[in-house]
């Protein structure tokens, strides 16, 4: 059974690129363009891993992290933050909000698959 990956990212080209990259590798990839719909989708589909952007309109990635950790049904889903927020403060903030991994954009494609494999 294919691993389910949920991408929550407001930049469509990136979403499309990741789907294009992961689907050939056998991942079942779903996506959401904002935090709230991301939460809704993951509640419905129970993904194996979430790729989460931080800077998004409306709910930020950090809030999504916190809400997931606050929700027992979502708390155990691994979170890989993929963000253009790259300072050490940003990384600390992400990890302390509940993220399991933190990849900075632009990321190395191999590194992405390695991380997903590690967490999913």
């Amino acid at each position, binding site marked *: 059974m294919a691993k389910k990956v949920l991408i929550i990212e407001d930049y469509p*080209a*990136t979403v499309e*690129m990741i789907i294009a990259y992961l689907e050939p590798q056998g991942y079942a990839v779903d996506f959401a363009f904002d935090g709230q719909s991301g939460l809704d989708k993951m509640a419905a589909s129970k993904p194996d891993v979430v790729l989460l952007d931080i800077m998004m309109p409306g709910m930020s990635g950090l809030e999504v992290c916190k809400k997931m950790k606050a929700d027992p049904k979502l708390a155990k889903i691994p979170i890989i933050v993929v963000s253009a927020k*790259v300072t050490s403060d940003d990384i600390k903030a992400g990890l302390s909000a509940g993220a399991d991994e933190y990849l900075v*954009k*632009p990321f190395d494609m191999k590194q992405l698959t390695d991380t997903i494999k590690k967490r999913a």
Partner: protein
Amino acid sequence: MSKLGFKLTLQTRFVIFVSMTFILIISAISYYYIVTEIQHYKEVYHDKGIILARTLAANSEYGVLILNRDILLSLVQNTIKEKDVVYAILENADGKVLSSAGMSGNIPLPASYAEKRPISQSKDPEPAISSRDLGGKIGLVYDIAFPIITNVAGSGIAEEEMLGLMGGKGTAAKATLKTIGMARIGISLIGMNAAITAAMRATLLISFASIIVGIFFSLLLFSMISGPLNYLLEGTNKLASGDLAYRVKYTRDDEIGALARSFNDMAKKLFDARKEITEYSTDLEKKVEQRARELQESETRFSSVLDQATETIIVHDSDGRIIEANQEAFRELGYTMDELLKLSIADIDPEAITSGKGELWGKVLSGERFTFESRHKRKDGTFYPVEISLGRIVLGNKTQVIAMVRDITDRKKSEEETRKHLEETKKLYEDLKSIDKMKTEFLSVISHELRTPLTPIIGYITMFISETFGHLDPKYIQKAEIIKKESEHLHGLIESLLDVSRLERGVPMQPNKEPLSILTLLEELKEVMKPQFDSRKMTLEIKLQDGFPAIMADVNKIRRLITNLLGNALKYVPAGGGIIIKGTYDETKVRIEMIDNGIGIENANLKKIFDKFFQVDGTYTRAAGGVGLGLAIAREIVTSHGGKIWAESDGLGAGSRFIFTLPIA
């Protein structure tokens, strides 16, 4: 008193005293002698007269009894032959002159004699003596009358009756004495007078001689004393006239000699004392002169200093009255000197009193110093701002206050301008700071915004190259690789922007230290960068000292550091060049030296190259690329680890050396 006067006076007195003493003594002796002599002569004449009278009376008894005038005459004539006898008279009992020689007749008997006419029958009758002045050549005469007595044996009744009357009743005398006449002689005292005169003459002569001798001896005596005294006198005069070196040359061992020695001692002491006084006085005069000159100079200097001063200087007495002021004070305040010297501190600085600064006065008088700002009032009533320094001067028991007053009109104006300027600068600074903050935020946003599109670009190009979407003609893949390489370059620039943003915010880098092997890191980087070196035909040599230690450092930061330095070298070292990395260490730190044979660095730029955005020629060099952040970031990394980084170069074309140290622990 002159020398002569002194001498004469003392000598004269001495002589007079001695002479007078002589005269007195000799006069007394002469007087006694003459008086005694007169007495003696008187007695001699007296006795002589009595003897003569008695002799005459005795001799003439017979002649009177018989009344023989011739006998009587010869008797009297013989009598007056005796020296000094001036007359001789024989009278009968009735007083009738029987005979006389010399002066006679005219000489009356003394009345007393007639009454006392001796009628007794005494065998030794008393003569009746009287003296009388006969004047002329005879002068004083002793008249001596002696009775002529005869022995009558029992004859006549009358004679018996007479005896009864005279001798008392019942006494029957065997012989009866009867006065039958009177013998009288006169003895002149002229002889005596001549003798006395001669004696007196001799006495006077002796007296005179004695006086002469006395004067002579007194002079001699005086000169015996005054001679030596003259030595002393001369010495005294010399001394008095100032010749303190003079010594009395009198060496005899007598009282005067002792006096002379005392005198010489005294003169010596005087001489020494005078010498000392003279020296002291000379010294003192010099000192006084010197002091006076210094005082004059000091005063001149003081007033010159006062007048040269560009500040107003005013001296007040302890009550605040103005007692001295310099030229600047007159100029500033607009008063003349006379006017100013009648004023008090309240007249020129009314606010000093009313504003509570008056309390300062007491403190200043007790020695504190104060500097404060106030306003001074000119003669025309206008005020100007001043800065006043008050200090105390103590002159004996007087205390004065010296006020240094600076006109701070210009300073006030300048302060106001400075304040305005500062405000403007502050505002500008705030503006700049806010612009700078905006810039930093902008950089941060740019970094984020550029990464976002770069992500799918790099993602897709990576997939192209790995032919994720199917087989591609190698020439596309080749171009795709170029796109990827340029995208990575773009990525690097974006990373730099972020570093800039962080540096701009002044956030210190916080290295995450863990054990790091520099050698491993260098070799890894050499491998990673091998394509870049190869493409430029450049070599990279690593020479680390044996036993190079592991250090505690942030792996990622150190990797960036070395990457930056190597990237820099790649830019500035011409193709075919080489880079050597040397590593040494000591107990506390490691030292890494990166030596290239590139274009080198001008001495003036050795430090500047570590500044942000510094480009050697100030312009963006396409060939070198980069935005001038590599070395700034490198420095940041090294310093955040507690190390140092610097560059060395022998100049353009001479290559360069980048050296950094890192602590081991």
